[in-house]
């Protein structure tokens, strides 16, 4: 299983804080594509130019490989400080 988390505005527009799915995607790009099938807002707000992504708490790129047990987090560009 892969655990997927959503934060801030992304969590609110998707109406979802976290979900789990089978580890049948090889990388982040494939995960985004699979999640985009969940609906219009998922397709729109999870686009790679809108949502950053971290795997096991480290920012990664689209080609980052995924394995069972990974924690993936999608979130908007950060605004702390």
């Amino acid at each position, binding site marked *: 299983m892969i655990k997927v988390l959503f934060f801030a505005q992304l969590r609110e527009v998707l109406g979802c804080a976290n979900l789990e799915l089978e580890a049948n995607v090889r990388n982040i790009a494939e995960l985004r594509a699979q999640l985009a099938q969940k609906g219009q807002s998922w397709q729109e707000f999870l686009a790679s130019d809108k949502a950053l992504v*971290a795997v096991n708490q480290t920012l990664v790129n689209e080609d980052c490989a995924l394995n069972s047990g990974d924690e993936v987090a999608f979130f908007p560009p950060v605004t702390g400080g």
Partner: protein
Amino acid sequence: MTNAPQQNHISVQQQDFDLAAEYQALTANNQSDGAVVHFVGLVRDNNLGRQVQALELEHYPAMTSKALSELVDEARQRWDLGRVRLIHRVGKLGLGEQIVFVGVTSKHRGSAFAACEFLMDQLKTRAPFWKKEHTQQGEHWIEARESDRVKAGDW
């Protein structure tokens, strides 16, 4: 001793911090450093023309400490630093409240000034915090600024 773990203090917390205590922690029994630079970020009352009443700060708890530690490690690779203290608050914050503290000591001022600014610039684009603004017109998430991204990329 420069890279000893106790030379770093990183905290993500709801409660406020005390500047005098932070300064004390940076300087007590520290006679090798001649420079202290610190930065404090505050909640201001106006953002892009909107009257702000309060801010709400969300974060990704499992990632924030790790991300901040990595930034401090990077700063130590670039400059010879003594003590580094980094505090970021989360939760609901009223006008004028302290949000963030970055304090750095080094032998001379150049490294301390640079490392303090570096840490703030990187934190703004790489640490998983998000601000929601409460205004009279309602609440909304603050959008990331291109100028922050450019500034972080300049280092």
